[in-house]
């Protein structure tokens, strides 16, 4: 058995199960050597980005901010689904933070960043009507279906937009937008499962 190459601990090795999957880690270790990352640097990628990239990053941050607001409202309205909505809200908060770190010029203003500010959804983000405006608690199946459908559609729209933008931006920003697209697609998949459980007919969202 050949040992895995000794490198400093990385996220890739952790993902692959460090030390227990030697050949697999060898493969992943190769990937590590080929990694670019999205972490900001002192002269971060945001400093040299073209205006179109900054605009795409800003739009992504605004979309994520709108979904933070939507999930927060949904969690209040549907206590039984709060664990789900809180975890997905946290994803969008990570997205906002990550975008701002990589592209400081895309950081939302304090007003629009506030999850309770009522910021308008980004262009390309469906308005999650019931989730964003309703404050009364309602854990009925019908209310769940309505909110899940709204969030599903908003996630789908945001993910589609990130996909399109990931193909237009420079290589400096493409990994982040691609990741946002993938995260959105996975959330769409997850919410679709909850919708099915809630009794929504197949293909109902959208």
């Amino acid at each position, binding site marked *: *058995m050949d040992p895995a190459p000794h490198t400093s601990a990385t*996220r*890739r090795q952790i*993902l*692959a*199960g460090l030390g*227990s*999957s*030697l*050949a*697999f880690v060898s*493969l*992943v270790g*190769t*990937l*590590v*050597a*080929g*990694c*670019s*990352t*999205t*972490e900001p*640097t002192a002269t971060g*990628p945001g400093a*040299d980005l073209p205006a*179109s990239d900054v605009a795409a990053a800003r739009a992504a941050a605004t979309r994520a901010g709108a979904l933070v607001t939507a999930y927060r409202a949904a969690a209040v309205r549907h206590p039984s689904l709060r*664990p*789900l909505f809180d*975890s*997905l809200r*946290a*994803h*969008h908060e*990570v*997205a906002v933070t*990550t975008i701002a770190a990589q592209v400081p010029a895309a950081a939302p203003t304090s007003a629009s960043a506030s999850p309770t500010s009522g910021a308008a959804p980004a262009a390309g983000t469906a308005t999650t009507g019931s989730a964003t405006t309703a404050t009364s608690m309602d854990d009925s199946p019908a209310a769940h279906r309505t909110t899940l459908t709204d969030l599903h559609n908003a996630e789908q729209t945001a993910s589609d937009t990130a*996909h399109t933008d*990931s*193909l*237009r*931006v*420079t*290589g*400096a920003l*493409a*990994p*982040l937008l*691609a*990741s*946002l*697209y*993938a*995260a959105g*697609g*996975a*959330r769409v*998949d*997850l919410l679709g*499962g909850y919708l099915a459980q809630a009794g929504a007919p197949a293909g109902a969202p959208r």
Partner: protein
Amino acid sequence: MSGGTRRRRAIAAAAPSGGERATPGLDQAAAIEALNAMLAACHAAIYVSAAAGGALAPLGPDAAAAQALARSAWLAHRELRDSLVAAVEAHGAQPSPALPAYRISLTPVSVAGALRLLAEAEEACAAAAHDATAVLTADTRRMAVDALGGAAIRAQRARLAAGLPPATATRALPGSA
């Protein structure tokens, strides 16, 4: 930071936008390397999904859902592998070969173990695709972006099928840190 990472950051900073054609030289070399990194991860995922599916087969109805996930992953990665091989060859380069075998992190003797293996393989593929988008353009970048999206969903499905709650089964930024 490794030399390779520094070089890729420099390349990424100078990379054309996704709609432009790759230029010869460093961009071309970086694109080939990124595609081959994705291909290597894909080969491993094919092996893992086949191993998981084979191990699940005798476990009966309780393993049916996991077996379906393994088969879905196997099919998806075979299709992606063929596309990646074609893309590498289109660059005039030699595609990374599959290894005869891969040492996996655990023997998939249970449904939970098989699902964990499947998720790990998808995470490695997602990481490769994520990083590749920095140096790829046009159709090959689209291939990487779509591969990342597919891997993220399959990994999440495997984690959910293993019984993880959404809070730990989902990822804020698949393929990234």
